[in-house]
């Protein structure tokens, strides 16, 4: 029962993150929405394991969390440097290449 309620809450949270990803308005909103959507997917996978009484998929959920973190870092690096082959500790001198606000 508890896991059912938690799953429902996570699903509602996923929909809210989806609304933010659809509406924008800035590109950083969308990056944040995608990242938090990934986190909610991780929690949902863990919860589904407990709902079915087989929490064997928890390690997969943890690996998803790692992937989500790495891809968020990669996307933000692309924002900043236009490339991935830059070390992260380089001070960002380049202006962001994307326009802050999109009109789509």
């Amino acid at each position, binding site marked *: 029962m508890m896991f*059912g309620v938690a*799953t429902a809450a996570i*699903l509602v949270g*996923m*929909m809210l993150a*989806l609304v933010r*990803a*659809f509406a*924008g308005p800035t*590109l950083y909103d*969308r*990056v944040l*929405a*995608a990242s938090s*959507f*990934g986190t909610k*997917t991780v929690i*949902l*996978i863990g919860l*589904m394991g407990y*709902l*079915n009484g087989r929490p064997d*998929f928890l390690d*997969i959920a943890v*690996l*998803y969390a790692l*992937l*989500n973190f*790495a*891809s968020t870092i*990669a*996307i933000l690096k*692309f924002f900043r*440097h*236009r*490339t*991935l*082959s830059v070390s992260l500790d380089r001070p960002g001198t380049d202006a962001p*290449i*994307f*326009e802050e606000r*999109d009109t*789509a």
Partner: protein
Amino acid sequence: MDALLANGEILIDLALLTMLVSVAFVMVRSRHLFVIVMLSGIYSLLSAAFFVSLDAVDVAFTEAAVGAGVSTVLMLGAMLLTVRREKPTRTGRTPVAILVVTLVGSALIYATFDMPPYGDGASPANSYMGEVYIDRAAKEIAVPNVVTAVLASYRGFDTLGETMVIFTAGLGVILLLGAGSVRGGKAVKDKPDGETPS
């Protein structure tokens, strides 16, 4: 309790599929390429969660690693080489296209009526070879996951061949593009004639 559990699973699947369809609609309608790239990452996360809910964990993991991880970054890299916004297309609706889509869609929906019920033990997919694998895998190969047993043992040579093909394709791509193209696709200028490349 069992009925409630089954209903709950159906509700989770319904919620995930609804979100999938809405993401797909927004992706089709949007003209802003960055939005489409981010939404495609969300789309593959959603389908990975849906695959986990269908107990296809290996497929889910491939989807999350390839779809949400690598291909988002690859599409961002491709987007940097082109414009940020898709060119507007003609807004006129072509009746032939709508007719074809409707016909194909209704044919596909009509075909689903012939599918065996979900989880039917007597369906073709679950009877002949699948049944043999499920019966024998636990005895012959001490791997708890039948899918892994089939992929890595019964079809071991097939999997080895697939891995060879993918490895060769990756090598070919690296040879064609050159490892230097990781630097954000910067244009490499040829030296003018008469000058020896350093």
